[in-house]
């Protein structure tokens, strides 16, 4: 999980995408499919987490900009 945290959103999303693509192929063995699905679920959580952090960052940043403007 730690390793994943350091990856960027785009990297995580791309990994997720290719994981889903390969899982959709008919020839995947069931154990492999279990693993892929598990990993994909993990990545979705990571991506969602990154998005909500970004949302908070943007909110803080724009609030700061507006405050600076109001001060002027």
């Amino acid at each position, binding site marked *: 999980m730690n390793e994943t945290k350091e990856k960027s959103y785009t990297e995580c999303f791309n990994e997720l995408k290719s994981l889903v693509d390969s*899982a959709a192929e008919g020839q995947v063995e069931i154990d492999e499919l*279990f693993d892929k699905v598990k990993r994909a679920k993990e990545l979705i959580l990571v991506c969602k987490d990154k998005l909500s952090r970004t949302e908070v960052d943007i909110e803080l940043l*724009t609030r700061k900009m507006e405050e600076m403007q109001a001060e002027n």
Partner: protein
Amino acid sequence: MPYYDSNTHNKIFSLSEVCASIKRTINNRYGSDFWVEGEMLRLNHYPYNGNAFPDLIEKKDGTVVAQMRAVIWASDFRRIASKFKLYHSIELKDGINILFRASIIYDTFYGLSLRIIDIDPAFTLGQMEKERQECIDRLRKENIFGLNKQKILPLLPKRLAIISVESSKGYNDFVNIINSYSNRYAVFYYLFPSLLQGDGAVSSIIKVLEKIRLVYDFFDAVVIIRGGGGDLGLSAYNNYELCKAVLYCPLPVLTGIGHSTNETVCEMIAFHNGITPTDLADFIMQRFVKTDEQLHKTIDMLKLKCANRIENEKEKLSMLDKYIDLLNPTNTLNKGYSVTLKDGKTIRQANQLKKGDRIVTRFSQGEITSIVE
């Protein structure tokens, strides 16, 4: 009556008799009035009784070739002055060319003079317009007409060198507007006092522009502010030397001279003519307001775009999430389906197996091992 000297037999007149004779002659010869063109060297108006005693001259190639005294009686002066006021741009003053209707009068005390009954302001205006046009033509010919317009006015002109008079209405109008924004936008200004109208204005403004040249690094623009003085005495702004000084100013020059007549040359060549001091102050402060608004809009846009982008990503994620649930074998097993494996590999067709094979069947919960019969 004249008398004869008993010794010399000369006919002797008294002074008053001579004067009376001249007066008679002149009255007979110059019974009617006529139009005369001339330069009014000095107006010599005496406000306490309202009379004026202008010195009139005619110049040819710079030298005076004729000179005569004139008189405008108070009642005539009032009428003429109000007629001039209607023209807004001109006043009766020293040094203007005038076309006037006059009669020749002779006074036993003051001698010969022209009594001015009427003045044609259109003529004087025409003369001034001619000078104005000459100034424009000369600046164009010297190819310097657009010099100041090529300067760069910073987006936010924060440091202004003001040429004005502290007590003037125009200056106060201007700084009141600038100051009214001081809680939001800090604009620094410094007043360089100068005469702004009449004969002294030209040399005074030129001198101030020279002063500003020495410190121009400290300023973003020069602002010439006048106003409250009516439309009179504006001819200084059509002066070639003054216009040249404005053109060669190292900073953009903004004018707010405030009048209702023809644009002066100075205003035409200035980087920007704000017309009145109030308009000019608005022009400057609007740059701040607009920039501020744009910044606000940009921040709003940024917020919106970020929110949209994040929403978009969230949707993509939830779609992928749903798709993963479809692929998830656990969900299939939960529905009652099972999967058959041999040596860990999924069996998709019955003919992959033969009698005696050992197979594993996986359910949603647990698995069993069987032998194929």
